[in-house]
């Protein structure tokens, strides 16, 4: 039989100071919001009139970080069809699940709504950035906690 016994360990003068704990959480949320903003902005940085990620607060620890731009919506979510025909040798500035953009080449040649083509592949920046920082979150929390000790 294996017996497991838990012992409560309270660090001396540590994070059970509520104000310190609150500040560590504030810093974690602010830090991650900054990280996500950088990643979203980097995803579209080579676009003409590149949009900048916006930052909306929800109470003390809620944040929405998003790109408000019609092109971004199409690219992020993808489309079933597209009506634009691109120039020969066209190279897109963005690729699915990549938080960076490149110079690309070419552009729209013409738009014909009577001639639908295969849709835009979803870039999924929102999901990619969430997956990325979900994995990195423990390290950020650790640093914010340590900065308060």
């Amino acid at each position, binding site marked *: 039989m294996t017996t497991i016994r838990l012992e409560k360990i309270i660090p001396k003068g540590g994070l059970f100071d509520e104000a310190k704990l609150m*500040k560590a959480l504030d*810093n974690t949320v602010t*830090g991650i919001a*900054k990280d996500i903003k950088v990643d979203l*902005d*980097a995803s579209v940085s080579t676009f003409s009139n590149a949009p900048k990620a916006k930052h909306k607060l929800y109470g003390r620890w809620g944040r929405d970080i998003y790109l408000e731009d019609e092109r971004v919506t199409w690219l992020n979510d993808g489309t079933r069809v597209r009506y634009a025909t691109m120039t020969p040798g066209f190279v897109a500035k963005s690729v699915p699940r990549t938080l960076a953009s490149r110079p690309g080449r070419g552009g729209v040649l013409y738009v014909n709504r009577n001639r639908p083509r295969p849709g835009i592949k979803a870039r999924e920046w929102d999901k990619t950035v969430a997956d990325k920082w979900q994995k990195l979150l*423990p*390290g950020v929390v*650790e640093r914010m906690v*340590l900065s308060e000790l």
Partner: protein
Amino acid sequence: MPNLDDLPANLQAVIRETLRQVDALSAKMEAGDITVDQWRDQMEAIIEAQTESSLEAGAGETVGAADLLERLIQVQLDFLAVFAADIVANHWLPAYRSRAQMYAESVKVSYYNGEIIKQVGRVLPLPAMPAEGTICLTRCGCSWEIETVNAANRDYDAYWRRGKTDSCATCIEREKQWSPVRIRGGELRR
């Protein structure tokens, strides 16, 4: 061997030593001299020792940040577990030598945490460290430069400095947006 010229000399030394040990281990795997379990055990030992060395190299002394050290090591051991599972599934592939070398470069994150401790005597609530969440991953050559505004109030300005050859999209954007990030009263400003 990755280009380390842009990095501080003492960090280069830690990475070179780690690379030497990791490459020796890769050679044993290629020759079939050790099992995957033995490789993983020895890789874990290398990561633990070298992460501690790099934190100390960054801080310039023995630091007492045991929690930080443990966390830094654990992140790499989690990646290592996935790597070991891949080796079991695929056997040792030639590309795994350079994948293993990335663990040597991962010590940069602990080095830069140590460097912050050296600059201001404590860990700061910075949004990210070099090589943490960057597209260039552990190849990142960036660093934080900290300007103390008022130490007693815990007021700092932190500048993301890009390495000479570092041109990944994340690092470029961080340089634009994080020059500086402001910490006031120990709180990271929005």
